[in-house]
C-alpha cells in the first residue's frame, strides 16, 4: 500500500506540473497582448522579455479614443453583433423547435443540408453573396454585413438548438396542453426556459462570430467610418512599429468582453455543446 500511495502522489504532482506548463502556454500570448498595450511609444519594438515593459503607461488606450475613430468602430461592432445575435437566437430557436418536434416533408433533407453547409469553404457563399450585394448596392452597408453574418452562423445554431430540444421530453408539452396552454404558450413558457443553456450557447456563438470577424468585413465595409473593430485592429497591425501599441490596446478592449462572456458561460458550454451537437 505504501508503494501505491507514493505512485499516487507522484501522479498528482506530475498532473499539476502538466497543468501548470499548459496554463503558461495558454496564458503567454494573452499576457503578451497586455504587455504590448502598455508599452510607451519609444519601446514598442523592444527586445527584452521582461514581465512588464519599463515605463508602462495607459497612453495607448487614451490615444485610441482621442486620436482615432475607435469609439465609432466600437459602436459599429456592437450594433452589428447585437443585431446578428438577436436574429440568430430568434430564427434558430423557432426553426430548431420545428425540426425537433414535428415531422414534415423534407425534414431529413433539411437537417442534412444544414450539416452540409458546414463544409462550404468561406468563399463558397462569400463570392456569390459579394457579387449579389454589389448588384443590390449593399456593399458598404450594415444590412449587407448583417445578412452575411446571420447566414454563416444560422445553420450551426439551428442544428444545435434542435439537438438540445431533442433532450427535453415531449411529455412536458402534453402536460402543458392538458393544462390549457396553446402551442405558442407551451413553446414560450415551458420549452424555451428549459432550453436556456442552448439559447445561451447560440447567442454566444452568434455574438462572437460577428464581433471578431475580419475576412468578410474586409470585402464589404470599405469606408473607415463604417469599419468594425477587427478592421481597425488590422489597420494598426499593418503599421507594426508605429502603431503596435494601439494594436495591443485595441486587442485588449476587443478581447475582454468576449473572454468574460466565454468564461462566465463555460459552465453551459460543456452541456450545451455535448448534448446539442452530439446527440443530434
Amino acid at each position, binding site marked *: 500500500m505504501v508503494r501505491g500511495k507514493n505512485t499516487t502522489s507522484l501522479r498528482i504532482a506530475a498532473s499539476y506540473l502538466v497543468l501548470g506548463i*499548459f496554463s503558461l502556454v495558454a496564458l503567454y500570448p494573452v499576457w503578451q497582448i497586455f504587455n504590448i498595450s502598455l508599452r510607451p511609444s519609444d519601446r514598442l519594438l523592444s527586445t527584452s522579455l521582461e514581465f512588464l515593459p519599463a515605463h508602462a503607461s495607459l497612453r495607448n488606450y487614451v490615444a485610441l479614443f482621442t486620436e482615432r475613430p475607435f469609439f465609432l468602430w466600437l459602436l459599429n461592432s456592437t450594433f452589428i453583433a447585437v443585431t446578428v445575435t438577436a436574429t440568430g437566437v430568434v430564427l434558430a430557436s423557432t426553426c430548431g423547435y420545428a425540426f425537433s418536434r414535428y415531422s414534415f416533408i423534407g425534414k431529413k433533407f433539411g*437537417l442534412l443540408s444544414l450539416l452540409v453547409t458546414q463544409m462550404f469553404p468561406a468563399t463558397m*457563399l462569400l*463570392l456569390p*453573396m459579394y457579387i449579389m450585394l454589389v448588384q443590390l448596392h449593399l456593399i458598404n452597408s450594415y444590412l449587407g454585413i448583417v445578412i452575411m453574418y446571420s447566414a454563416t452562423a444560422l445553420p450551426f445554431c439551428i442544428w444545435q438548438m434542435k439537438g438540445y430540444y431533442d433532450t427535453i421530453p415531449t411529455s412536458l408539452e402534453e402536460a402543458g396542453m392538458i393544462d390549457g396552454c396553446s402551442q*405558442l404558450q407551451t413553446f414560450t413558457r415551458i420549452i424555451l426556459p428549459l432550453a436556456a443553456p442552448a439559447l445561451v450557447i447560440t447567442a454566444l456563438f452568434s455574438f462572437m462570430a460577428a464581433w471578431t470577424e475580419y475576412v468578410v468585413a474586409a470585402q464589404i465595409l470599405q469606408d473607415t467610418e463604417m469599419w468594425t473593430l477587427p478592421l481597425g485592429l488590422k489597420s494598426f497591425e499593418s503599421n507594426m512599429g508605429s502603431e503596435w501599441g494601439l494594436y495591443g490596446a485595441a486587442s485588449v478592449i476587443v478581447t475582454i468582453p468576449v473572454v468574460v462572456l466565454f468564461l462566465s458561460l463555460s459552465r453551459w458550454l460543456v452541456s450545451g455543446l455535448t448534448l446539442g451537437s452530439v446527440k443530434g
Partner: protein
Amino acid sequence: MHNQTFRQRVFLYLLVAPAFIVLFGVVIYPFFYNIVLSLSNMNLRHIRDWRIVGFDQYIKVFTEPSQPDFYVVFLKTVIWTAVNLFFHVLLGVFLALVLNQKEIRGKAIFRAILVLPWAVPQLIVALTWRGMFNYEYGSINLMLTQWLGLPGVQWLRQPITAFIAVIITNVWLGFPFMMVIALGALQSIPHDLYEAADIDGASWYHKLRHITIPLIQPVMVPAITLGTIWTFNNLNIVWLVSNAGEPSDQTHLMVSFVYKAAFNFYRYGYGAALSMVIFFILLAFSLTFMKKSHATQNVYS
C-alpha cells in the same frame, strides 16, 4: 407528434418559415449561384458580359500551371488538417484526463485558463502570434536566443518555417475545443465501471483502452469530423499569420488560395469552381468518415 391538426400545421409553418426564408436567400440561392459562376467565365474583364463556358474553369483548376501549384496546395492542406487534428485531439483528451482526476484541486481555475485560447478572437490570436514570430522583436526568437542561446529563426520569410508557424498558432487555439468536449464525455462515464476495474486489478492502460476510449468515442467522433471540416476551411489563421500567403504566395492552403484568386485577382469563375472542388473533397471525407464510425446514426435517427 402524429395526427397534426390544422392549427398545428399553421404553427409549424410559422416556426419554420422565417428561418427558411433567410436560409433560402443567403445560403441556398447563393449556393446555386456559385454553381452557375463556376461554369462561367466571369472575371475582372468579363464582369457584365460574362457567359456560360461549361467546365473550363474546373479543367483550369486541375491543369493550369499556377504559382503555387494546385496539387502542392492540396497536399499542404491535407498535412495541415491532419497535423492540427492530431495535436488537438491528443492534447485535448490528455488534458481532459489530467483535469478530470478526482484529486486535482482548482479544476475551475485550470479549466478557465486552458479554455482561453478558444475564447480569444482568432483575428487577435493570429496577429499576436504573427508578432511573436517576428525575426528581431518576436518573443519566440527572443526566448530562443536569450534563454537557450540558439540562433533566431526567420519564421515568416521561408515557406517551411512559415507553414510551421501557422500550424503552431492553430494548434494553440484549437486544443481547448477538444478538451471541453472530452471533459463533457468523461464526466458522463459512470464511476462504478472504474471501481469494478480496480477490483479486477486492471492497470491504468487497460482502463484507458477498454473503458475510457470506447466510452468517449461516440462523443469524440462527431467533434473530430466537425473539427476536421473547420480546420480544413480555416481561412483566418493562414491568411493573417502569413499575411496573405507570404513569402511570395508559398504559404497557401486551399481556402486562402481561392480567397486570393477571387478577391485579389478577381477571377470569379475560377474561384467559384475551386470552391466547389473544396466542398466536394470535404463532403466525400465526411461521408466516408461518418459511415466508417457509424456516427450517421445520429443524423438519421
